[in-house]
């Protein structure tokens, strides 16, 4: 007798994907909780855009920041810059002030952290979820003071290209943050 055996098939439960939680510059509230990690993708289509978002802390908080560019499509040489403006940071030099776009607003009590993204050798990051290579400005820990900090991102030479801005280390998907991942997976996932 030769016939199929009937057996149950075990269905595996999908493993969670840990990493920066995705959000969007189009979101009504871009960062809902600044105490864990996020990634925000963006694209310079005219080169003149200035992207910004805010982080509000009740107490001083230190966390790493980096800006990455995907290498696909000749985008690997793209070098967008960013600045963090807020309490607890050093006052900007004239050189830094000259590098900032006009949109950047610096309050009387604010300081800045400026990432020129001009290192000769930048870190190449392989993102295995979607099998992409990204070049990083370098992950830099910045100690922010209590209050509101604003991050501004721009393309210094009005170059066109895509980027991902990432910050934070703690992961938190407790309130169902996967919705955004799967609805727009290829935009995020690192």
């Amino acid at each position, binding site marked *: 007798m030769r016939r199929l*055996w009937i*057996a149950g098939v075990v269905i595996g439960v999908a493993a969670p994907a840990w990493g920066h939680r995705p959000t969007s510059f189009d979101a009504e509230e871009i960062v809902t909780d600044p105490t864990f990690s996020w990634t925000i993708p963006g694209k310079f289509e005219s080169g003149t855009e200035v992207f910004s978002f805010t982080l509000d802390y009740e107490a001083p908080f230190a966390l790493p920041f980096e800006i990455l560019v995907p290498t*696909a499509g000749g985008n690997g040489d793209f070098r967008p810059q960013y600045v963090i403006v807020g309490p607890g940071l050093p006052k900007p030099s004239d050189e830094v002030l000259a590098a900032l776009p006009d949109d950047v607003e610096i309050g009387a009590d604010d300081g800045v952290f400026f990432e020129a993204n001009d290192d000769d050798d930048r870190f190449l990051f392989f993102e295995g979820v979607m099998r992409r290579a990204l070049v990083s400005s370098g992950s830099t820990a910045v100690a922010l003071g209590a209050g509101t900090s604003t991050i501004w991102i721009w393309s210094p030479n009005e170059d066109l290209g895509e980027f991902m801005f990432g910050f934070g280390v703690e992961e938190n998907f407790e309130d169902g943050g996967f919705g955004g991942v799967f609805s727009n997976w290829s935009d995020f996932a690192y």
Partner: protein
Amino acid sequence: MKTVDLGACSPIGVILLTSLMAVGLAFASPASADEAVSTWDASRWSVGVPVEVDVVGFAVGLHPEVLYRPFNPDGGFNVRAAAGTMVGTELTLISPLALGLRQELFPTKRVQPGLGMGMQWQSFAVYGDSLHHRMDMYMELTVHTQVHDDYDVGLQLSPEIGLIGVGEEGLYSTFGLGMAVRLNVQRNSL
């Protein structure tokens, strides 16, 4: 000193391997010991040379495979081994070995749909970076058509889930995605 933390591997790997075994047992035709251990029998073997397109982390190449029917040379239960190299714009994907099972549902018919699953060693040679090794679980949805007494052509769709990273620190839990589409030409009965 290098360490291997087997406990760090995702439990989903164990679940999926158990699933694989269950599927195999479900479809395997019982056979006598003599039949299973017979000497070289060309009718038990097939060789396919598919062109593969990886649509996650775009790459194109050849991914040859060998099929062995351990129980019934005319049956649909196959043990599969494959190796291949796919070249892309951001990386070259080298798969030194994939091992799995494939069940063709109507092996005596001209059109043979099939299902399969197994494990695949993936090495991502990212341009400008080092090799990244990973163990993926793959699934297969296949359909082959007999075009000659000894030849089939077929289309294979193979989703992949990265489970285990392999690095200098040993094995570690990871997560990744993949999707391979293969256009296959297969010779049966070597």
